[in-house]
């Protein structure tokens, strides 16, 4: 219960930060960080996949509403969470962790190096789709890829920053 309240609190804080601070600050042509994705890296991995998927959709839609980008955040977040489920399933042995008596299975159990690769790739998938849907042009593929790469690094840095803040 405390965990659930904590996650809702994190979601609200990061959502507000994303909508009213990070989005409003001009950070250059290619840099558009989206640290709200951190929520999906702190949620327990053994949480029901349908709840995660629907909450990703709702959360993305709320960010869309606040930023005026109808559907772009929600579509990219839904795809990221969908892919994340299959990556989790392939890389994490839930059964053995349950047998070990773990009720909360987090990413920390796999170590920091795993977290870096894991979150960077998921953030890139999200950003690539987000900018793809935003530019909506095959001819802008280089610009989409560049923006997605630069923003991935920006988002990842902010995710690390917020994660360390919330862990304290």
């Amino acid at each position, binding site marked *: 219960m405390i965990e659930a309240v904590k996650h809702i609190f994190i979601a609200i804080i990061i959502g507000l930060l994303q909508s009213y601070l990070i989005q409003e600050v001009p950070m250059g042509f290619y840099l558009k960080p989206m640290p709200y994705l951190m929520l999906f890296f702190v949620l327990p991995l053994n949480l029901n*996949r349908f709840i995660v998927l629907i909450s990703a959709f709702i959360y993305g839609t709320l960010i869309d509403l606040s930023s005026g980008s109808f559907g772009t955040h929600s*579509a990219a977040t839904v795809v990221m969470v969908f892919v994340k489920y299959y990556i989790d399933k392939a890389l994490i042995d839930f059964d053995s962790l349950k047998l070990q008596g773990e009720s909360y299975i987090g990413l920390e159990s796999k170590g920091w190096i795993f977290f870096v690769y894991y979150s960077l790739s998921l953030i890139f998938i999200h950003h690539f789709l987000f900018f793809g849907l935003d530019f909506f042009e095959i001819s802008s593929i280089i610009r989409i890829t560049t923006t997605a790469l630069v923003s991935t690094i920006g988002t990842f840095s902010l995710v690390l920053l917020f994660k360390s803040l919330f862990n304290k």
Partner: protein
Amino acid sequence: MWVIYQWIKKNSYPLLAFSLFLFSFNQILQYQIYQHSFYFNSSISFIRSIDEWRSNFTSFVNLKTENDKLRDENLYLRNSIAYSDSLIGLYDQIKGDTTYLDTLSSPDKTRKISYDYVTAKVIRNSTNRPDNYFYLDKGSVHGIKERMAVMGPEGIVGVIIQTTKHYAIGMSVLNSKFETTPLLKRLGLREGVLKWNGSDSRLMSLDEISRTEKVKTGDIVLTSNYSSIFPPYQPIGKVKKVNNNTSSQFLEIEIELSTNFNKLNTVYCVSTRFKNEMDSLQNSPLISPVSGINDKKK
């Protein structure tokens, strides 16, 4: 049904993700101006290309029906013209104006001799013999008679020489027995004899034209009003070559036919309504055979 339910249950997670993605994507297309216009323009051009493809396909499939319709319509129009011409002739007769027959001699005046048209299809045709004939899919029951002129869409084709109830045989202009006097449009000249020399299905020769006549390459050759079979001023072809370096007093003229006999399909059989009158004049014992009325079977 159970299988479908099981399949949905098994794939509920991807299905839910896909539905949510589609919902979001729909929002993008609906509410974002650029994406909406891109989607709108792309879908319109896609629908147009599909429509175009469908229309082309339907046109192709219906080509035969359309062709038949056009042929019938052509026939109707030709008969309408003939009918209106005959009415003008009748009106002149009532008025006591008997000059309607004379109007044939001038292309500028209204043509008042009327013609009956019957459309037919060529079912057999030859072009490589010295005497070529063609067979039509219509006969006497359809109104085809002997000595009717046969015209194609591009020009003259030949003359009907024999009919049965449902078929007819025609003598092609590509026949050594065929002769006619044409009209050279530019010079207004009704002279000479048009014959087939038996070598090329696109070429005929025009003989007996005096060397003093200034016939040029490209001159249009039409049927003349001296013919009792062919309606006047129908296309025959054009002058392809003129040779005046001969020792004789006549020019050697080569005519390129407008009708391609190798692609002959639909033809019109034409008869003049006053043909019997003209034939009776032609056969009158008081006069010797008239040189101008040709198209005779030797």
